[in-house]
């Protein structure tokens, strides 16, 4: 058969399969991310149906997916919001960082994967999936709850931390010497700060350049700009994802809203491809041996997020029930954790890191929203009795 024909057949079958899985996730009321990962596991290396021809195409699609994920994430927040939540919630944010990065780092060190893998695993266990968390809050009618601003501020803080963490991780993974590594991290931090300042002060100029009443022009300009900055960032070893994130932050207001609406279908398509690609690279046979540590890590990840939520909500003057809800909302992990693991896998980290991260996210992306749904009536009942 013709090469193109095979690529289309394989890629089409994958997308169609994802669509069916997505419909199932919707009906059951869970995030589709764990199902996408499972699909990737089924197709890829050592899976049921290995995809030979389209893997290269899918890998480019996956890179695009990361850029679009981060771009739309950046569009969610304005630079003002980032700075405000940084000021108001720095303490809770730091508690979140320390409590939730520690299990991953400790686990990697205990398994003898070395310091670089420890940094990567710290990121894998740290970040809450803001996408899944926001959906949980909305689905359960928690958006109006008084603990919700605290949860959202923590998510913003995490995303901003990522903007600093990803360049550091990229530099470490590149295996640079201490001096040039430090230089790269320096460049990264300077770039991130410069872009943030530019976005805060001169965001309207970028907006004036990008803005267009025609949605086609707007789409091309934004995606073009994001890819250019992402490429530039990658060249500077700052990580393409961070470049796209910063472009998203620079745009705000109505323009950001319009762009997000335009980008959403595109992002959904390529983000799904990204999750599949990560699954493709992971050998399902390798998941079973790491299932034990992954389950332990997931358990630790739940406890640390519950503690974080309780700490942050208590500081905001929220009662016990609300503290528990804040913690539960923070449990789901998802896209960011896979992005981080993906970076580490691409750089040739320990072969077990990918499967461990996949299992970890599988458990918490699926269990987080479910836990929230199951525990909600319990908390309410307890609060009523008290």
């Amino acid at each position: 058969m013709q090469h193109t024909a095979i690529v289309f057949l394989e890629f089409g079958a994958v997308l169609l399969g994802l669509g069916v899985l997505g419909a199932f996730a919707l009906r059951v009321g869970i995030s589709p991310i764990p199902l996408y990962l499972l699909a990737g596991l089924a197709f890829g290396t050592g899976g049921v149906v290995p995809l030979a021809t389209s893997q290269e195409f899918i890998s480019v699609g996956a890179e695009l997916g990361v850029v679009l994920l981060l771009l739309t994430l950046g569009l969610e927040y304005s630079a003002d919001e980032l700075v405000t939540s940084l000021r108001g919630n720095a303490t809770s944010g730091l508690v979140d960082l320390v409590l939730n990065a520690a299990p991953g780092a400790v686990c990697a060190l205990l398994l003898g994967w070395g310091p670089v893998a420890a940094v990567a695993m710290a990121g894998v266990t740290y970040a809450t999936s803001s996408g899944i968390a926001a959906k949980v809050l909305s689905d359960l009618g928690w958006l109006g709850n008084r603990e919700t601003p605290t949860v959202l501020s923590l998510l913003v803080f995490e995303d901003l931390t990522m903007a600093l963490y990803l360049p550091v991780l990229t530099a470490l993974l590149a295996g640079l010497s201490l001096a040039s590594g430090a230089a790269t991290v320096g460049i990264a931090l300077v770039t991130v700060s410069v872009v943030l300042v530019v976005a805060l002060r001169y965001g309207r100029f970028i907006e004036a350049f990008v803005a267009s009443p025609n949605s086609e022009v707007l789409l091309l300009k934004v995606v073009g700009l994001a890819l250019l900055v992402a490429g530039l960032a990658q060249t500077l070893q700052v990580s393409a994802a961070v470049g796209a994130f910063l472009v998203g932050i620079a745009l705000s207001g109505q323009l950001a809203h319009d762009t997000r609406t335009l980008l959403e279908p595109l992002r959904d398509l390529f983000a799904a491809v990204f999750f599949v690609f990560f699954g493709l690279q992971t050998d399902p046979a390798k998941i079973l041996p790491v299932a034990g540590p992954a389950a332990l890590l997931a358990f630790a990840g739940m406890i640390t997020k519950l503690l974080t939520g309780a700490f942050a909500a208590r500081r905001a003057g929220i009662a016990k029930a609300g503290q528990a809800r804040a913690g539960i909302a923070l449990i789901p992990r998802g896209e960011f954790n896979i992005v981080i693991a993906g970076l580490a896998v691409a750089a040739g980290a320990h072969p077990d890191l990918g499967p461990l991260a996949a299992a970890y996210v599988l458990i918490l992306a699926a269990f987080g929203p479910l836990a929230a749904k199951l525990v909600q009536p319990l908390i309410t009942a307890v609060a009523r009795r008290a």
Partner: protein
Amino acid sequence: MGRTVDIEQTALPGIGLRHEFTTQSGKRVGVVSHRTGRRDLVIYDKDDPDRVCETVRLNDEEAEALVELLGAPRIVQRLNELHQQVEGLVSLQLPIPPGSPYVGRPMGDARVRTRTSASIVAVVRGGTVFASPGPAFVFAANDIVVVVGGADSTAEVADILARG
């Protein structure tokens, strides 16, 4: 009246804004304004004041309808209070008589502010209040026009609306 309502405003990063207040009877209500234009009317649980026990999701039209239902009598009432509070400021409710030259014509044609320096702040039509109508607002017979200004200028407006 006396008691003003303390409205608390909270930013919801990535989502929008939340406003809330406690009623005199101790119920806590709020509105979550999404950036997408969606509005959620929320009522807080009495036993767990941090938790929303009822969420009413409103689209643009529904939110507007609710505002009209709740707001119409309030605007006129507030104007009357204003009248009592500020010395020298008069608010009048002037009818558009069926014989008025402005029936079926846009408000801008009357050039009320230019000619009298008084302002038309609302028009009441059949129980519905059109707050701060623009110059393109078209008068109908029997509309009640709410005018704010000095004693002389509001009287002039009455003249203009009746005779042109």
